[in-house]
């Protein structure tokens, strides 16, 4: 490709052709390495995504052929769907609580680990473990047991004479148990924060020490500003993840979003519409609205980032 442009004009025809062929075969080789991903992307991501865009304008019910109904699905979602707004509220509450708390927790732990304690790799691995298990069914089931009325959480509270509520089956608390579950999976942002902290040159802190800055000042004037690119990255990734959260709510409420729809995440509502009530066209429209919301959030983050993210260059 670019090789063609770099060929000196003096070379003879046959040579030119052979070079071109070399370029072509190299291109083929690189595409063949790319193929597994590319095929997966086209077949399993892009294709279904485009299909769902079409389906969102139909009344597809899974069994019969879809019929085009224009923007009726979108109109109903916006103007006449109580559950849509309710699930939005649940999801936004979850995102607004879970993401900052998780990031704060991850950063705090990363800073403790960054102080060079013995056995760091072991701790790092241990703290990362919940993130590996986090989305799994087993953990959600465990969580259900832990926060039942006579679960371990309440036994522990009972030691201090506190009679805890029935966390997961009480609509006043059920969503917060899911937030807690999300915070507990702080491992992957923690690892990234840890790597970010390592990037900050120690001489900056030395200079600050000499100037008489205390630890709090150092955190807000040095650590946090220099870490903003990492905070930015983690923030975006975690926000997108939180919007898409599905498994914990699905398992803990057995797919109902209960009690009283208190854990009816947007994705869970979408799933119910599509798979339980046969309204796949409607569910597709819901999915596209979520996509647009996530895209807006991400775009907004990028637009504002230049005011608060400091790149070290």
């Amino acid at each position, binding site marked *: 490709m670019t090789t063609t442009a770099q060929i000196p004009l003096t070379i003879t025809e046959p040579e030119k052709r052979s070079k071109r062929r070399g370029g072509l075969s190299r291109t083929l080789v690189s595409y063949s390495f790319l193929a597994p991903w590319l095929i997966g992307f086209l077949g399993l991501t892009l294709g279904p995504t485009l299909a769902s865009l079409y389906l969102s304008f139909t009344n597809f019910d899974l*069994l019969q052929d879809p019929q085009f109904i224009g923007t009726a699905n979108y109109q109903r979602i916006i103007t006449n769907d109580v559950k849509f707004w309710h699930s939005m509220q649940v999801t936004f509450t979850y995102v607004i609580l879970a993401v900052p708390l998780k990031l704060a927790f991850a950063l705090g732990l990363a800073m403790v680990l960054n102080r060079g304690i013995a056995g760091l790799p072991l701790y790092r691995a241990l703290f990362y473990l919940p993130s590996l298990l986090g989305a799994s069914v087993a953990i959600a089931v465990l969580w259900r047991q832990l926060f039942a009325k006579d679960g371990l959480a309440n036994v522990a509270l009972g030691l201090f004479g506190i009679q805890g509520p029935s966390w997961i089956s009480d609509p006043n608390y059920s969503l917060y148990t899911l937030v807690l579950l999300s915070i507990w999976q702080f491992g992957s942002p923690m690892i990234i924060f840890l790597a970010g902290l390592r990037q900050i040159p120690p001489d900056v802190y030395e200079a600050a020490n000499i100037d008489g800055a205390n630890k709090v000042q150092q955190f807000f004037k040095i650590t946090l500003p220099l870490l903003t690119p990492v905070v930015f990255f983690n923030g975006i990734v975690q926000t997108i993840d939180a919007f898409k959260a599905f498994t914990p709510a699905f398992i803990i409420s057995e797919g109902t979003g209960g009690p009283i729809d208190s854990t009816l995440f947007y994705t869970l509502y979408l799933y119910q519409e599509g798979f*339980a009530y046969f309204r796949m066209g409607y569910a597709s429209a819901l999915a596209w609205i979520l996509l647009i919301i996530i895209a807006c959030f991400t775009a907004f983050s990028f637009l504002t980032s230049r005011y608060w993210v400091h790149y070290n260059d």
Partner: protein
Amino acid sequence: MTHDLNRRTLLKAALGSAGLSALGSLPAFAQDARVRLYWWGSKERADRTLKAVSLYQERNPGVKIDGETLAWGDYWPRLATQAAGRNAPDLIQMDYRYVAEYARRGALLPLDEFLGKSLDIGDFDKASLDSCKVDGKLYGINIGNNSNALIYNKAAFQKAGVPEPIDVTWDKFFELAAAVTKAHNGEYYGTSDGSAEEVAFENWLRQRGKALFTEDGKLGLDEKDASDWFAMWAKAREAKACPPADLQALDKNNIETNLLTQGRAACAFNHSNQYVGYQVLNKNPLGVTMYPQGAGPNPGHYLKPSMMWSIYARSKVAEPAVKFANFTVKDVDGAKLLGVERGVPASPKIREAVSAELDAQGKLVVDFISHVTPKVGPIPPAPPKGAGEIQTMLRRIAEQVGFGRLSTADGGKQYVSEAQAILSRA
């Protein structure tokens, strides 16, 4: 979110195929008819079904049956997805609630052409056949009949010195239940809270001369009916006959999480065929009886196919699939393996043969059905589109009333208005 959905689905597919490969030890040959068999249910049901499959394969070397099983909640989404991909299983365990929905959308094969040939169910009584028909065509093979059944912990009543709740009125029932709770110092309740159970609600409505849905698919009750229902349970909750809402919410609508199985309440509102599944998971001996009765003469109970076999409309092995289905309901050996776990067989000859070899639990179920049969009313019409959503909605509103977020009167109003909205949309 598609990411998570996919992972879950994949996991299930992997589990399913692991089960398949464990099952299919015989090598399959090209000329084999491979029938995909799909059912929901407990482990007990899976064990019984797989035994019937291996016996059938032994007798019919050319046929290979691949079984797949899921829990009720996961079963329907997966079936709908497979049907959308035009890749549904050949032989599908079908429920009365869904048969019209699938049949009218053209996903099921009418079975009339097989009657009298590979499908030899001429000795089924009319009710057992009609309940599997949609718009005059046969879409299901009745695997067994059942009826609403109150399943209860005998020991809890004995220990409390309270008579068992056999054929009692609702008032008496709650009185007994409250006495059981009291005798267990309030740590164990006389009954689970049935206000969210549509089966119980329907039975109670029928006792009042109402129904969930009318023949033409409209709502068969009014606000007063629904709020009276919620009020009855609110009173029971207050009298501690049933547990408070936060305890009841642990029930996720399956045998495993029902408060009876969890050892927190003495009664569960269910179907007679589920008795076998309950007993497997419960240490204490369980009893089975009718739901509490109304004051009037209207019967709440009816006999219905607890489930049926249906054939996928696009199946290429419809004939072998029908033959296997026939084996489970008309062959003495096949039917014996299934027992009464899927309900009491509709064929008199088979019912007799199966009953003769039943264990005590199985006999109890058969006796129960004989006891109920003279007291039942007609089967209600097949539920309209959107009925599944209304069932979920009842649960949510019952919980709202249970947690005190809605008054019983407002609960009734909301049930009716939401149900009408769902019906007009579907």
